[in-house]
């Protein structure tokens, strides 16, 4: 006979204990701790992840000053991250609608090397999402086409990031596929022995043999 009455008080006592534990746990934020496979609990908020034996101990820990400090820090971090994300989304949205010509000019001005200049220009155009302005530029046609190709690619990347919020999922998927195809084609060219020069143009590796009538990727990719 036990003090709890009945024949098997052990089980009842266990239930009772579990109910108490549940009650204690209820008051604590669910994402702040984790139950380990051995039944112990670990606090996820504190930087050194203390392991606590029972829910009661966890509840005591949660009330502690150190934990509280860690908690507020965590919240702050979360907020700032949210802010950053919002900012970036906003930026991406605005860049797809209107060009901040000033910013691109500033960038062009700050750089000296022509290549970087070109790249920046191209990038800004891409960000602007407008029709290629490179036609107005004083460049040979194949270089231009090259840039156009580059631009398209980047555009698709940018878009695939940006349109996550706005565009329909099929379109995003399509674009991703496009990107994959393009990447695959590029890899094929590389494994066929083509190389890129500093201008991004394709040239033949001198150690590799080609068919005499092999198409120049600079030409057919440009179209």
């Amino acid at each position, binding site marked *: 006979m036990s003090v709890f009455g009945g024949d098997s008080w052990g089980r009842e006592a266990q239930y009772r204990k579990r109910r108490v534990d549940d009650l204690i746990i209820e008051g604590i934020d669910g994402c702040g701790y984790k139950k380990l496979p051995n039944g112990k609990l670990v606090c996820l908020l504190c930087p050194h992840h203390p392991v606590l034996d029972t829910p009661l101990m966890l509840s005591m820990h949660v009330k502690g000053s150190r934990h509280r400090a860690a908690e507020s820090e965590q919240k702050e971090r979360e907020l700032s991250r949210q802010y950053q994300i919002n900012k970036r989304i906003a930026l991406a949205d605005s860049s797809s609608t209107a060009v901040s010509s000033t910013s691109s000019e500033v960038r062009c001005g700050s750089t000296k090397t022509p290549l970087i200049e070109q790249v920046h220009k191209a990038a800004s155009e891409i960000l602007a999402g407008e029709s290629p302005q490179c036609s107005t530029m004083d460049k040979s046609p194949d270089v231009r086409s090259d840039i156009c190709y580059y631009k398209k690619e980047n555009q698709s990347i940018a878009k695939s990031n940006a349109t996550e919020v706005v565009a329909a999922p099929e379109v995003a998927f399509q674009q991703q596929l496009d990107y994959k195809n393009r990447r695959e084609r590029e890899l094929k060219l*590389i494994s*066929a*022995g083509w190389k890129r020069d500093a201008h991004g143009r394709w040239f033949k590796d001198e150690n*590799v043999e080609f068919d005499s*009538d092999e198409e120049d990727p600079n030409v057919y990719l440009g179209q």
Partner: protein
Amino acid sequence: MFLYSLTLQRATGMVCAINGSFSGGKSQEIVVARGKILDLLRPDDNGKLQTLLSVEIFGVIRSLAQFRLTGAQKDYIVVGSDSGRVVILEYNKEKNYFDKIHQETFGKSGCRRIVPGQYLAIDPKGRAAMIGACEKQKLVYVLNRDTATRLTISSPLEAHKSHTITYSICGVDCGFDNPIFAAIELDYSEADQDPTGVAASEAQKHLTFYELDLGLNHVSRKWSDQVDNGANMLVTVPGGGDGPSGVLVCAENFVIYKNQGHPDVRAVIPRRADLPAERGVLIVSAAMHKQKSMFFFLLQTEYGDIFKVTLDHDNDRVKELKIKYFDTIPVTSSLCVLKSGFLFAASEFGNHALYQFQAIGDDPDVEASSATLMETEEGFQPVFFQPRKLKNLVRIDQVESLMPIMDMKVINLFEEETPQIFSLCGRGPRSTLRILRPGLAISEMAVSQLPGVPSAVWTVKKNVNDEFDAYIVVSFANATLVLSIGETVEEVSDSGFLDTTPSLAVSLIGDDSLMQVHPSGIRHIREDGRINEWRTPGKRTIAKVGSNRLQVVIALNGGELIYFEVDMTGQLMEVEKHEMSGDVACLDIAPVPEGRQRSRFLAVGSYDNTIRILSLDPDDCMQILSLQSVSSPPESLLFLEVQASFGGEDGADHPANLFLNAGLQNGVLFRTVVDMVTGQVSDARSRFLGLRAPKLFSITVRGRRAMLCLSSRPWLGYIHQGHFLLTPLSYETLEYAASFSSDQCAEGVVAVAGDALRVFTIERLGETFNETAIPLRYTPRKFVVQPKRKSLIIIESDQGAFTAEEREASKKECFDAAGIGENGNAEQMENGGEDEENNDPLSDEQYGYPKAESERWVSCIRVLDPRTTQTTCLLELQDNEAAFSICTVNFHDKEYGTLLAVGTAKGLQYWPKRSFDAGYIHIYRFKEDGKVLELLHKTQVEGIPLALCQFQGRLLAGIGSVLRLYDLGKRRLLRKCENKLFPNTITSIHTYRDRIYVGDIQESFHYCKYRRDENQLYIFADDTVPRWLTAATHVDFDTMAGADKFGNLYFVRLPQDVSDEIEEDPTGGKIKWEQGKLNGAPNKVEEIIQFHVGDVVTCLQKASLIPGGGEGLVYGTVMGSVGALLPFTSRDDVDFFSHLEMHLRQEHPPLCGRDHMAYRSAYFPVKDVIDGDLCEQFPTLPVDMQRKIADELDRTPAEILKKLEEIRNKII
């Protein structure tokens, strides 16, 4: 990983052979060495060679010799091996094993240049033996007899001479004077000292006589004389009253008789008329035949021509040496002339043959003689001859040989139950493609159509003492047909059998009466024609019958058993009835034991998945003695009695045993041992045989009872050399069978299948595989399978031969000259002389190709349909090109589909230095449904492409030391990427995903990776051991298996962490910039398996030989053996077998004195492989030894045998 190594097909080539009377008396036997196996063969009365004994010695046999003590009746065998010991063996006829009489250690183990074992010579009077090394050492042992007439051996006497190379040794017959041994030697001490090379070019071979002084007990150099520098072999000439004594020295182009104090007698060896002038003629094997009044020698040249050499002598003076053309047979490694009039030719490559002498070459033929030897300014005048058909010899048997296996693939092209092994075997014109199927070969004697579809067949004798069967009885659905066996098989109606009803059983009952059991009764036909008929009670019908010679049990529908016995008067009397609980599925009575009146056991199988054993004793008749439950209802039962055996021709000791076999409906054969006294069953084993319930029949094989099991294919259970073997037969599905014996066919089987009656015999018992051979034209190199079209593409090439057209032209010329009509047709040339029995008088298979200059190559690419064995396309390469590598390749997004790439070399020469004119890669496309090849283009490369492989829609080629990636261009292959960092020559390439596993000819494996984004090939790991790779196969992503030319098999694995690191290197920077280690790649593979096979492995493949079996590694070797390595699946098995192996090593050391562990670790310590060949020697041990080992392992011998059987069944 732990592996179990098992040889599936023992080596089939022969290194050397000796003949003598090893079992004593008049019988003639042959002992052959097959590398690591010692076999005893004997031609039987029909002229077929039978293997009496085959022992694996776990060592390398380098030489064999036989000797006989004076006055004895029996020959002993001396074995020179790599054990550093000389071993003398005696064949024990009673117990059928080799008895090791003496084992004398003299040096280090292994095949070393100064450790004796390479040469053996025997004093012709059997008083002494000399064992020599290639260099320096020679030891002489004195052989004698003690008072109990046992053979004794002395301590060794040294006859060493340093700085001396030995070419050949032999005993000199000098009667009962002191024994003398002759040796061809070359002293290189001066040549070694002289840096200018003058001394080396002037070095001279000498013939030296060593005399063993029996009185002083020491060996001295007695005489030395110069011989030709081309001398390569010595042959003993009879002496001591039988002949002039001395030796024959076989040299290039000459045979010289030499003896101390005798002038040289020299004769030129006749040359083939078509032999190029710069080629000499060497003797490669010799045999001496001696009778009371005469003796002669048979010498075979390297081209296969045999010459008979006779000496015209007057006491000790030789007046004339004659060399007469005898016959031409394929080149041998040993010739044995048997006293019984046979010539055994142990072929160098290809099948061995047994010939019978028709004549001994007394007819006139081309002859060279010392008397007519002409010396002119240009040298000696040659004698020419033209090879002709066999005149003095006739071939009566051949022993199949796969040697050498050049390439092998396990694949199920014919969609049979088990895969087939396709192997390229042989060399030159005797090369073949052999299709091996696991199972025994059968030879079909007769097939005849029957008027309906028969359901069963029996054979019966008329009298118990008859040798042959009298009737074949065939039962149909509603009739019975009786055929009498005589000169012909024809239907009879006066046999007394009821022919209007189907039969359930037909057998001989009593001594001379016949019994027919049909559904409504038993018909008993007495010898005098009286017929007794027993009818079933009421309307019940007989369902099943079991009978032996004196007892019959029938089961009626509903489960009633009625038991009959034959009484003293020959009447069939009902003895007992017994009601079973349900219908009887099958029943069988054990055969009547010798000297008993009745058998005690009846086995009854019921549909409730049980087998009961009932007693038939009068005391406890129909009492259930034991009960065995099985997994599925039994369909058929058979008692198989194994008689007690104490050795003898074909078996080890084992007590009498009674086995109960049951074919279950789920296709499993269930086998238990029945206690002969109590009837208790024990030691149950089961094996899945096929998709149909096995029906069991008792037949006779080699005079013993054996069991035929008919499932979806037939199987034979029989005892061979002490083992019970259950082997499939290579035959179609059969319905019912019975043993068959007539004067044309002593031990056959008659069976029904469909509406045909088939009579066949089972051949070559004890073999694992049966083979179908398809002849090829030149030495096959490699082959690939076109799995879609199920055809094989084989590349063949030979050095120093003429092309087919040239050969044909010269043949025609030769026939014209000889006046023979032109009959060697082109068809036959196609397949390199398909059949030598054809009317082609000079088949290449027999005579070899005419020899051309050594820089000339011939080669062809063949497309072969293995089903029809037809060659659908044969392209002969032109311009001295030879093919060395082959692969099929699918280039990505190109229009041709599957293409064939072949790597060739032009003008390849190995001597004096390896050189070649050019290397090419040919690309062929398949046309006409893959039957024909068409050359697309040919790309010249700067090395010989020895390895080709498809990789990511391109072609990877190993060209010399360069690994190169090719893409298909319009007019040639386009080089896309290469890596030149391989050490020597690339010989194998395997690919998996983006990894490339490259095998180097002498530096083992290199693991490479192809990076598409950089178009670069990187070597990221290699092996630390310089292995001379001969075969390789891919095991898994990190593991490769390889074999080296020293006979080792090994597995290497890239450690898991390294592999992960390489796979998780997204930028590829690490792999690119990592530093190499030990002048090699940055990472090293680990060796996980190591095993010395003792034979050069030429091909490796991961495969499973049984349906649903686990995959293992199957390999083929130069000596023509096929083996397998199976991974263990449980730790318990590993423990068990490693302990068994350990005990066997201790209790049963190898026969020729090599330590087993040392042998398997000959080059590298053996690692994680258990030698199944040693474990399988367990049943050959004496019974008490078996029990001792079993006790140590806490098991019974039967359990160990069961384990051995189980693991064997997992492999094949």
